């Protein structure tokens, strides 16, 4: 008596793999679309700023959570900030002023602009120019200006920024200085 299989190994592997690949492509498309729709409709706060200004660290520290790594779109890390019934998504957006246009389709409540105050950052002039471009594109959206890395900043530079902007949050994600105030202001801006 011969117990022979109905399919050859090659046929078996091909059928199972084709089913798996088909399902993967279909489900990836459907699930990503569903999450993107949720991302678009959910109230959001965008963190913008120069490269290495500490956007990701700031998002992590104020949400007290780890970020989701670019789960749906390149350059967008997502965290959730919760306080009682209030929940908002904090989007750590690694985008240039020219690329910020695509974020306008999100339900943006406000944006946080992070200025790197450390000595090895881009010049304040350039960072302020970028902020103005962001503000112009995200017209009508409330903004928070955050001076990060104050533990490594020169007092003169801090003064220069404070002269330029009325409300500046001086923070350090390294020492956690000033972060609680920023967190409270962000949350209170949601109920307005």
């Amino acid at each position, binding site marked *: *008596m*011969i*117990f*022979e*299989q*109905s*399919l*050859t*190994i*090659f046929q*078996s*592997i091909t059928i*199972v*793999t084709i*089913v*798996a*690949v088909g*399902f*993967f*492509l279909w*489900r*990836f498309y459907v*699930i*990503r679309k569903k*999450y993107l729709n949720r991302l678009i409709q959910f109230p959001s706060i965008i963190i913008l700023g120069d490269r290495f200004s500490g956007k*990701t660290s700031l998002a992590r520290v104020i949400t007290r959570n*780890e*970020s*989701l*790594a*670019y*789960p*749906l*779109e*390149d350059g967008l*890390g997502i965290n959730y900030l919760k306080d009682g019934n209030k929940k908002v998504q904090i989007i750590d957006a690694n985008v240039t002023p020219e690329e910020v246009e695509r974020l306008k389709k999100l339900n943006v409540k406000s944006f946080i602009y992070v200025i790197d105050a450390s000595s090895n950052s881009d010049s304040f002039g350039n960072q302020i120019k970028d902020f103005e471009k962001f503000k112009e594109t995200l017209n009508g959206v409330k903004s928070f200006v955050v001076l990060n890395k104050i533990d490594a900043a020169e007092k003169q530079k801090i003064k220069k920024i404070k002269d330029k902007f009325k409300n500046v949050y001086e923070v350090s994600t390294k020492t956690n200085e000033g972060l609680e105030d920023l967190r409270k202001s962000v949350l209170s801006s949601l109920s307005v």
Partner: protein
Amino acid sequence: MKRIYRTSSLCLICVVILNILITSATVFLHEISHFLAGIYFHCKEIRIVLIEYPNLKAYTEMRCQPNTQYIFPALSPLVIITLFGILFLSLENLPEKNFCWVVIGFNLIISISDMLHFIPTFLIYLTLIVGVILIISGQFLFINEIIILFIKRKDRSR
């Protein structure tokens, strides 16, 4: 290439490799089950072929006494591979636990030719339908979970 597509392609490659491994393991375990049952029921001239060149078919050959002893080696893969499938359920928090249904369903399909001689035709069709449903459900659950895991993965690298 966008990072999302690059990483999802890697995820798809993992899905394909896992499926190839699971399918091959099921095929080999199926034949080994016949072989072991043949030994246990004192069948003679037992020969197991895991890959026969060139048609790549796996089969087990044996000479059993013409009574119920034939049925046991024929049905042995159903028992052993069902147990093998149930092992996957112990991977509680991993998407791979859903391979349980894929393995059991796939085994039902490849077992059909072993059972042709002693089960009625309608049961053959029923087995085939149940097998296909199990494979599709298992793959659906596995892939859904692996994509959600991929989307919700925490970033510890940055």
